[in-house]
């Protein structure tokens, strides 16, 4: 039920050309060397100079601080970028997951302050968002990073992990608690800028796949922040606003995750489809089996795409999408893995070879079922909304 306008098609064509020329080769190289592209990679500068992966992605009339974002278009671009390499897609300069957090929580002044840095096109810049901690992954309500007020300043102490692009970010949105006893009511979001004393990268993780972007852990050792770095200001956090804001962020990132998955699944499908066309016999049982598996992949990826587009459309039209975002996130990862496995089977023994790319996709895809809330977390989220599944069950 979605039709693409001319401008969106133009943008997708642009991404396709960039993907073929830059993104996939960068992803393969990052996988081979087990390290993401360096911050001064020429492609990052290309993106920076044109104000995004695709020129005009943020219109001049919108400005980088605008809330008039075009999520359906941007999510389709996300899908297409992940088609070429999801890791590199996540490594692209820009506010990253910090963007939705700013959109959901920040004051207009804060949006201007933290997003305007992306108007400087002289070098690539990144933003990031940190929620996960060594002792709080799926259960984000248990974050232990402390925030205490000291005069006009906030002081943060704790540790964050699995934070994308944080080692190269100009700022990181950090979720902390003013009092663990308050539960979700104690949550606050702060912007910690690069170079702030006490902010220290501890480790960049070595991963099985998705090596095109860095995943880092960092420490916050009595990091002192001006009061203005509390996103939304103190009045924003009355009742459960803070926690709800973080959850609202997930309601957009979960469909994006699904979009990435559809892109990766399509990449596997297309690889296998080309192989069937070029290498399979024109008839026979094995060909029939391969075609049926390809058709199944097509069906399930199409369904997953509809699910993320509908979740995004709900958000765009101001409707609640928490349930639908989790539905999409629940549906997509297993079928993406199924798509990659089917493609590997279609290639046969040749599938294990690294130069065929599919073995990389197999390693890359598993993170989709973990990041942004595992399959199990999604089921808890859905169950709570469907029938008031108790929190202590």
């Amino acid at each position, binding site marked *: 039920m979605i039709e693409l306008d001319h401008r969106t098609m133009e943008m997708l064509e642009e991404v396709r050309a960039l993907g073929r020329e830059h993104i996939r080769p960068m992803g393969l190289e990052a996988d081979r060397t087990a390290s993401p592209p360096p911050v001064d990679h020429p492609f990052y500068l290309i993106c920076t100079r044109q104000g995004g992966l695709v020129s005009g992605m943020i219109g001049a009339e919108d400005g980088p601080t605008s809330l008039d974002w075009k999520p359906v278009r941007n999510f389709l671009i996300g899908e297409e970028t992940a088609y070429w390499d999801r890791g590199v897609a996540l490594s692209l300069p820009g506010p990253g997951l910090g963007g939705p957090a700013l959109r959901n929580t920040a004051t207009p002044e804060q949006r201007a302050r933290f997003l305007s840095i992306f108007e400087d096109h002289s070098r690539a810049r990144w933003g990031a968002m940190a929620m996960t901690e060594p002792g709080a992954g799926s259960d984000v309500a248990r974050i232990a990073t402390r925030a205490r007020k000291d005069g006009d300043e906030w002081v943060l102490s704790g540790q964050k992990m699995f934070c994308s692009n944080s080692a190269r970010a100009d700022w990181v949105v950090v979720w902390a608690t003013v009092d663990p006893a308050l539960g979700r009511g104690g949550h606050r979001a702060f912007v910690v800028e690069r170079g702030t004393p006490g902010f220290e990268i501890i480790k960049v993780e070595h991963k099985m796949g998705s090596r095109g972007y860095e995943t880092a852990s960092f420490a916050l050792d009595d990091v002192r922040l001006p009061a203005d770095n509390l996103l939304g200001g103190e009045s924003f956090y009355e009742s459960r606003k803070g926690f709800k804001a973080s959850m609202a962020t997930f309601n957009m990132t979960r469909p994006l995750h699904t979009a990435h998955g559809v892109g990766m699944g399509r990449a596997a499908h297309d690889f296998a489809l080309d192989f069937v066309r070029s290498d399979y016999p024109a008839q026979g049982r094995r060909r029939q089996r391969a075609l049926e598996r390809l058709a199944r992949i097509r069906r399930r990826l199409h369904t997953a795409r509809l699910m993320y587009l509908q979740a995004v459309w709900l958000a765009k039209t101001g409707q609640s999408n928490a349930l639908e975002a989790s539905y999409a996130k629940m549906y997509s990862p297993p079928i993406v893995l199924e798509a990659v496995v089917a493609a590997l089977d279609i290639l046969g023994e040749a599938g294990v070879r690294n130069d065929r790319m599919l073995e990389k996709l197999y390693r890359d895809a598993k993170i989709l079922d973990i990041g942004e809330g595992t399959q199990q977390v999604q089921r808890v989220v859905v169950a709570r909304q469907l029938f008031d*599944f108790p929190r202590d069950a």
Partner: protein
Amino acid sequence: MRDFALTAEVQELCVAADRLGRTELAPAVRDHEEAGAWPPAVTAVLDGFPLGGLDLPERLGGVDAGCLTKVAVLETLALHDAAGLAAADRTGPTVGALLACPDRGLATEVAASLLAGTASAAFTVPDAELGTTELFWGPSQPALRWIWTCAGSELGLLEVTGPVHAAKVLAFQASGGVSVPFASTTERGRWDIGARAALAVRGRARLWAAAIAVGVAEAALQETLQYTTDRVVFGKPVAHHQGNAFDLAFAASRVHASRLVVRDAAASFDRDEPDAGFWATQAWLETMENAFLVTDTGIQLLGGHGFIVDHLAEKRFRECRHLAMLAGALDAAEADVAAVVLDVPDALLAGLEQQR
């Protein structure tokens, strides 16, 4: 950019269908099965919609409200009782055949008899390898007169002129049910309409079943939620045990997925997209897989209660399998989509595909 919302008109129709279903169908589901029909008053209301003519063009006596409207209304009615829909929806799975029939006069004659409520029609996909020689099941309220066949690139129309047999079948008893040997029919036409058009005919029939399956699955989900939140085991409601809660959440996600994919395929028919038959067949495959899962979960979580007729879980379970055995059953559908999968472009990115 289109959106996912139904128009106000379609929503109004669904509200009316929901009211009818709640008040006239749901309270007497087992009675309808026993009687082999929905009450005449209900079918009279549906004829007034007209349910059978919703997605037929005016030239065939319909109101041209579109396929999306039809699937939304079918889903709504099936939520309350699906068992009579094969008869009460006068055109049912045969709309694609009526639209594709090259003999306009004959199609008009058939459509008129259906919408007037003087004849029923069935749709089947004969299996050449198995040598199908009969229609195994068709509605019989009113008497079955027309049988559309569609295999390969061929569309055929048979008129029942000889004896038929009452058929005891898995579900949909409220639509009546007969088997018809092809020897009891007279061929009224046979046309080679091309592979793509034939797939559209079969896809339209499958989408009809898929729409009903969405309603059946939603009903199963709602009833399971009701039961599992009421009934206490090991000190808490069945649904509050995490293993069961996860199954329920998973089932809900699959009903949602099915609804989206069915409506998307219906919209592709309304836009006259060339591969609508492919996507409709895909939608049916998706929906049936999901409906099996949801209705099976329903019975499983009801335990022994799911297996007895005091609850409707067993009815939903039977209905989904019955729907999966229409239009050539699932294997034929899988063969259909596999046959063209190399040639059908991405539904959304078709314009880009050409440049790949």
